[in-house]
């Protein structure tokens, strides 16, 4: 039905089984004058690791919020797996269950334990009665324990979140997102406040999960080096515009947007902006 609707809007060219996220000429504004994003075109392949890099205030976070329906564009078309991300769109509301979103602040509930935070990811799968009486089914608890082990928090299940270190808190946030059984994982500057070693540990963790669970990871970064190291593709955003789309192939950085920039030019260009 959704496809029929789209063809009526003559935007069926956006449909692709390979692409999970597509944005076409997307504009957003917080007020009528200033635009946070200006004419963004983006298409992200299913099952890849995609990064968005740019200086503060460039509109990176806005871009992520468009993908989970927390914001809607003032102009342009967005499709997440063929569906328009809007809270009042029933089809998207169901899809939200499988979009893991980790905000920069992590959004953890501080006064409850690690496992309780992680179990929040399974809330959409609970029946009304189970949810009201906080009775999580045995299989969800088993799954939560499996994920706790996966993210390296074994033995800390019952710790309250406010007692954890910065790196551990990020692991909890990742675990909560994985508990959603996500197809898409969105993470906003998840490693920017961490030291280099911990940052890499967290990046490895996400990259492993992305590969084994075959999900699409879309991460916002401040650090170009880190993004290039882990992502298949990197979009560079500056002042609300996408200025580059690059990726590493062998020893070279390939410019997919214009196709005529060298590795050196690209790196210089970024260091000027940052």
């Amino acid at each position: 039905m959704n496809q029929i609707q789209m063809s009526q809007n003559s935007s069926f060219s956006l449909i692709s089984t390979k692409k999970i996220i597509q944005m076409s000429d997307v504009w957003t504004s917080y007020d009528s004058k200033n635009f946070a994003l200006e004419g963004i075109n983006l298409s992200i392949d299913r099952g890849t690791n995609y990064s968005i890099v740019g200086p503060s205030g460039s509109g990176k976070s806005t871009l992520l919020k468009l993908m989970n329906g927390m914001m809607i564009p003032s102009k342009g078309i967005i499709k997440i797996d063929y569906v328009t991300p809007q809270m009042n769109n029933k089809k998207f509301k169901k899809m939200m269950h499988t979009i893991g979103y980790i905000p920069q602040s992590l959004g953890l509930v501080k006064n409850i334990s690690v496992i309780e935070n992680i179990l929040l990811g399974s809330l959409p799968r609970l029946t009304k009665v189970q949810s009201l009486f906080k009775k999580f089914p045995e299989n969800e608890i088993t799954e939560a324990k499996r994920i706790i082990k996966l993210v390296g928090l074994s033995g800390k299940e019952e710790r309250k979140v406010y007692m954890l270190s910065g790196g551990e808190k990020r692991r909890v946030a990742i675990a909560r997102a994985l508990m959603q059984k996500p197809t898409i994982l969105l993470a906003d500057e998840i490693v920017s406040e961490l030291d280099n070693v911990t940052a890499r540990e967290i990046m490895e963790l996400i990259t492993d999960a992305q590969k084994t669970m075959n999900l699409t990871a879309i991460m916002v970064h401040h650090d170009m080096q880190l993004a290039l190291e882990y992502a298949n593709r990197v979009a560079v955003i500056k002042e609300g515009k996408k200025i580059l789309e690059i990726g590493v192939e062998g020893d070279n950085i390939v410019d997919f947007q214009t196709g005529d920039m060298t590795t050196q030019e690209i790196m210089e260009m970024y260091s000027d902006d940052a």
Partner: protein
Amino acid sequence: MTPKNNILIGIIIALLVVASYNVDANPIDFVEGLPNLVVVLDEMVQVEPKYIPTAIWAMFETIQMAFIGTVVGIAIALPLSMLAARNLNSKFVYAPIRAFLAAIRTFPSILWALLFVIMVGSGAFAGVLAIIMYTIGFIAKLQYEVIETIDSDPMDAVGSIGVSKVQLITYVVIPESASHLLSQMLYMFDYNIRQTSILGLVGAGGIGFYIINYIKFFEYGKAAIFMIVVLVTVLIIDWISVKIRDKYIIKSQHGMEVKTK
């Protein structure tokens, strides 16, 4: 000191004088009345120990009234506070609830007690109803203010999973505001015991009923026993609530390390 401040202080002093004149607040009367206090105190010292069991029983009744009032009041106040929070509801929901709560708070508990004495007759039940009403108005306001100031990030993050509003309240809002709630419950219970002690003035049961009657008949010695029992009880409850606060609330609010088993 600027001239502007001087004018302001002058105005306040002038208002004080005018208001004192209007209400007959004369410091000389106060000084002249001091010997009367000595008479009362002298009689109060002649305590009659045989009234102590009655006083303790009356205090026990008072505590029970305050307990019922606090528990039932909070049970009703909590759902109302969820409906009154601006970050959880649309204007059409929170505006009428807030107006209703504001109306409840307008009356002090003693006026509620008067109203309920008329409704259900004098006695402890009228007092309990008064305490319930007061607790609803008070706790619901404190609690919706807490809910409105809790961190919006966990709400946004969990909300973006696509959970229902009831789930958001059960799993995020309540845990995030729980430590404040415990503190408010303790405070309210403490406060309600003191309040219930005076509701007897209008015939709504509790220890205040004895105190007012003994004072009416100039039996200050007997009244004194009852007042001392109130004092001691309030001090004990205060001490207990400080202990509970130290153990559960301070730690969770400041993120101090708690020993795990």
